[in-house]
């Protein structure tokens, strides 16, 4: 790859900013801004999940729960209790982080499929609670009347301004992910992924690092959830269930685990796919399943891996 990873990272961030900024110009009408907003929010959640799965090698099949927690907590804080939106967002993100922190302790001791099942079970329990706690969440019919986003100094009134806000948050998220991965913590995480026992032998505190990345991924998902709630002004439990967790998982896998760029590409592609293939909307469940299987069998590196191979091929570099 590039001789100076830091320069490559900065260049990448610059390109991302340009792409995000110019995207609205390519749209024929304002409806697609909605789609782009959803892409950005999904990408934010997927970035967090990618950190967890790709770099730390932990699997989470219940990540939709953190997204939903962020959304519902901010809904209750702002609509039921009438507090300002900024407080709501802070509460939502904190709630996700707190739950993740408590869950991390017992869960991260588990390996492989046990961990998968535990996160899956957690996701389903949270989903059931959303459905049943009708007094708080409004139950299956959903929570109506969430106030629009209005932060001190920033109150996007149109879809266009909300999009730029979401894109900005996404860009900051990518920046932070890059910074973390470049730091000592990032290297420790990659060591843990490569071999837990070797990392432990080197003196890395496994539990603490795993918990850190788990909570971080929950923060990303929770933040995305809060923005989602204030954008749609409506949330219902059915969008935070197992299906959504699988979609997030597919986006990470398709994009290529351990690649922030891959995560973004996966998220944007899969979120906008139903719009391109309206005819296939019925079959979307099949497409997700097929993608998962095909990727894992033939393209474990995902889109990012594919891009890397192409780049290597083009540059004539030898693959080590």
């Amino acid at each position, binding site marked *: 790859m590039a001789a100076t990873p830091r320069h490559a990272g900065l260049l990448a961030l610059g390109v991302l900013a340009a792409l995000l900024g110019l995207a609205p110009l390519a749209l024929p009408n304002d409806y697609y801004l909605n789609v782009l907003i959803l892409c950005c929010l999904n990408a934010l959640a997927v970035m967090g999940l990618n950190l967890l*799965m790709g770099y730390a*090698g932990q*699997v989470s*099949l219940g990540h939709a729960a953190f997204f939903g927690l962020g959304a519902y907590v901010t809904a209750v804080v702002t609509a039921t209790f009438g507090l300002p939106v900024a407080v709501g967002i802070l509460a939502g993100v904190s709630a996700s982080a707190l739950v993740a922190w408590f869950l991390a302790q*017992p*869960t991260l001791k*588990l*390996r*492989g*499929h*046990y961990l*998968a*099942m*535990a996160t*899956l*079970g*957690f996701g*389903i*329990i949270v989903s*059931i*609670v959303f*459905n*049943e706690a009708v007094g708080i969440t409004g139950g299956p019919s959903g929570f109506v009347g969430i106030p629009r986003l209005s932060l001190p100094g920033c109150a996007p009134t149109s879809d266009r301004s909300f999009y730029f806000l979401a894109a900005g948050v996404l860009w900051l998220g990518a920046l932070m992910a890059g910074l973390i991965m470049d730091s000592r913590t990032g290297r420790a995480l990659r060591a843990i992924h490569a071999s837990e*026992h070797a990392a432990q032998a080197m003196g890395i505190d496994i539990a603490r690092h795993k918990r850190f990345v788990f909570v971080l991924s929950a923060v990303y998902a929770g933040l995305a959830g809060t923005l989602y709630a204030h954008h749609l002004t409506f949330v219902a439990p059915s969008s935070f269930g*197992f299906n959504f967790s*699988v979609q997030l*998982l597919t986006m990470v*896998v398709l994009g290529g685990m351990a690649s922030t760029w891959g995560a973004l590409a996966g998220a944007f592609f899969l979120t906008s796919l139903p719009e391109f293939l309206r005819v296939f909307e*019925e*079959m979307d*469940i*099949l497409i*997700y*399943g*097929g*993608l*998962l*299987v095909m990727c*894992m*069998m033939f393209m*474990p590196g995902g889109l990012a891996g594919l891009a890397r191979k192409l780049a290597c091929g083009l540059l004539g570099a030898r693959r080590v």
Partner: protein
Amino acid sequence: MLSSAPQYLVSGLTVGATYGLTALGFTMIFNTTGIINFAQGEFVMLGGMLSVAFLKAHAPLPLAVLLAVSVAALAGCLMERLVIRPVGRAPAVNLVIITIGVSILMRGAVMLAWGKDTFSLPAFTSAKPLAVLGAVVRPQSLWVLSITLLILAGLKLFFSRSIHGKAMLACSCEPKAAALVGISVDRMAMLSFGLSGFLGAVGGAILAPITLTSYDVGVMLGLKGFAACILGGLGNPFGAAAGGLILGVLESFGASVASGYQDAFAFVMLLALLFLKPTGLFGAPGSDRV
């Protein structure tokens, strides 16, 4: 509530039998290949849905059910051959994702073929419900329990007497040694998938007359089957069956107390077990080679 305890017990055992059969399927594959097959729940769904489909194609009920479980067993074999075997010794994460992908594909295929509707399967016999010890027992419940017991007995014989059964046990102990004595580990793997498909489908077909069936019943049934598996101790077939029955009964009593949250019981229990005693009620403590 105590006066109705026998009724809750009967409902619980009936549903629990299907959880047990699902859990057996998980155990079968895990024992032979070390993989947790997330698509197990879909085999259960296939049992019910395919029975309905064959019935609509004018097959008599027993033949429809037989065909359905055979097709499900075949699906299991195909899954192993086409998807699992090529991947080889992949990391657990990849296998988890692949099996999830296959389960989604199966669900999607059934949805495209027969829609999202709910379907009913006629009971195997249409006798009137019996009254036993203050509880009303449907004849179908008796079918469920007796077929499950028969299958358990059959499995015990299979593993202790037949050469294929012993070969499968050998694979689960130590695949390399099994290969050295001439057992085809690949073929045993395929057999285990086929067998677990059969078990799951039987569970689905016998329960469908009571609970109705649709394209998406597999998700919950599969997960609860896995919870039952862990409850009984992963790798222990009788633990799996027992775990299923216990889980079914717990759920039934739970529904009488808090009807909305009954589904959560299984998963709260699963989490509690995973955190506190992952080896389950009947499992042996595990050990890791560093």
